[in-house]
């Protein structure tokens, strides 16, 4: 019976990451390290599905390594007082990592197509990471963006013939939702710093980039994803208590998330 439960996709990508992230978030709620809950939630999903095998080092496994490295980079940036130059370096580093991750896919294309796909994905990654790093002082904006990005990446992946991408996106939304709940229960935001920002930005960017490179996500769904962190930057969402702000920011993020989902849906209607 427990094995049956752990083989259920709703448990693997939803309940288990939500529960684990809630526990970690609550335990570490008085520290910025609480945001490590996002990646622990993600790692739970990986442990329950594909596992951590890294041989052969395929594009998907390189992506897993990059996602697991994101909080480490975030902790380093935070330890060095979150200097702006380091944030820029993190965004550019993530973009460079995307070229490394999808190298084996790009090699199958002709030079022009490879340049367009590789360059486009790198640009998307750098902008999404930079936008999320702009939110790093506000735990509610970061959490809401995580929910929106996770749902956008997940549902658009499902529409693009990727069950793996769907589950990864839902995992990110569940873990980010857990961090919103922790802050609501605490009645005070927890500053995510670069740790929280990168723990959300990197999985969201790479889940969508993988769905584009390895499944059928249309390219125009990726720029549409950028509207999610942009929406939660809206100034009017800075007033009120934690619960009210979480609700308002959540609505902004979800409304913005419908655009990349609509883009992916439109692609299913053509061809």
């Amino acid at each position: 019976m427990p094995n049956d439960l752990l083989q259920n996709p709703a448990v693997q990508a939803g309940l288990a990451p939500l529960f684990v992230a809630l526990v970690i978030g609550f335990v570490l709620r008085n520290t910025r390290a609480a945001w490590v809950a996002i990646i622990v939630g993600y790692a739970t999903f990986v442990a329950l599905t594909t596992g951590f095998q890294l041989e052969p080092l395929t594009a998907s496994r390189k992506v897993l390594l990059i996602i697991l490295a994101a909080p480490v980079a975030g902790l380093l940036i935070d330890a060095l007082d979150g200097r702006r130059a380091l944030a820029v370096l993190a965004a550019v580093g993530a973009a460079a990592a995307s070229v490394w991750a999808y190298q084996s896919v790009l090699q199958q294309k002709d030079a022009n197509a490879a340049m367009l796909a590789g360059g486009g994905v790198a640009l998307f990654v750098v902008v999404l990471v930079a936008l999320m790093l702009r939110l790093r002082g506000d735990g509610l904006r970061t959490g809401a963006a995580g929910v929106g990005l996770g749902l956008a990446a997940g549902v658009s992946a499902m529409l693009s013939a990727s069950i793996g991408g769907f589950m990864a996106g839902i995992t990110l939304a569940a873990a980010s939702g857990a961090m919103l709940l922790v802050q609501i229960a605490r009645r005070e935001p927890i500053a995510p710093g670069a740790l929280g920002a990168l723990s959300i930005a990197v999985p969201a960017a790479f889940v969508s980039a993988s769905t584009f490179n390895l499944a059928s996500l249309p390219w125009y769904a990726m720029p549409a994803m950028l509207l999610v962190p942009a929406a939660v930057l809206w100034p009017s969402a800075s007033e009120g208590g934690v619960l009210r702000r979480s609700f308002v920011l959540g609505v902004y993020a979800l409304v913005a998330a419908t655009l990349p989902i609509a883009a992916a849906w439109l692609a299913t209607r053509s061809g």
Partner: protein
Amino acid sequence: MQKTLVALALAALPFAAAAAPENFTLDSYHTYPNFTVEHWGLSVMTGRFDKTTGKFTIDRAARTGTVEMTIETASVTTGDNDKGSRPRARDEHLRQADFFNVAEFPRMTFKSTRVNFGGDLPSSVEGNLTLLGVSRPLTLTFERFKCGQNPFNKKDRCGGNAVGKVKRSDFGMKTAIPAVGDELALNISFEADKD
């Protein structure tokens, strides 16, 4: 004495020719790797790959041989190419990273390590199947292996069916297990003309 030796050598020539390895090239229009897989533990679904190339060598006298086969993974079909009102068709999904990941691994290959004979013809072939960058041993047993003559070009021609089993999870293809079964039963129909 010299004349006798020459006569013996000439008499032995046909046997030498028969003992030579024979090379065959797979006829892609009559070579299809088929597979079956359980779905939800209820039915057994069938699929196949439409594009396969390769060659094999058999040496009946030495009872040895080699087999090399390359399968284009994008040619997978299960009879569901039309998505209709759904977002995607099953065959499109099978080509994505959840299953055959054709964008990263457009080909799977089989290379023999040993050909076993039963009588004059091969009975099974042992080798390695490489799929998704992972190589695993696979034994294909010939349910049928016959040779004759191509009626059109009069070339020697062999064909048959080889069966085997693989676990897709061994190659890292773990999506939807156990809803879509882990074990794939292979049945490769093949025909080849002698070079």
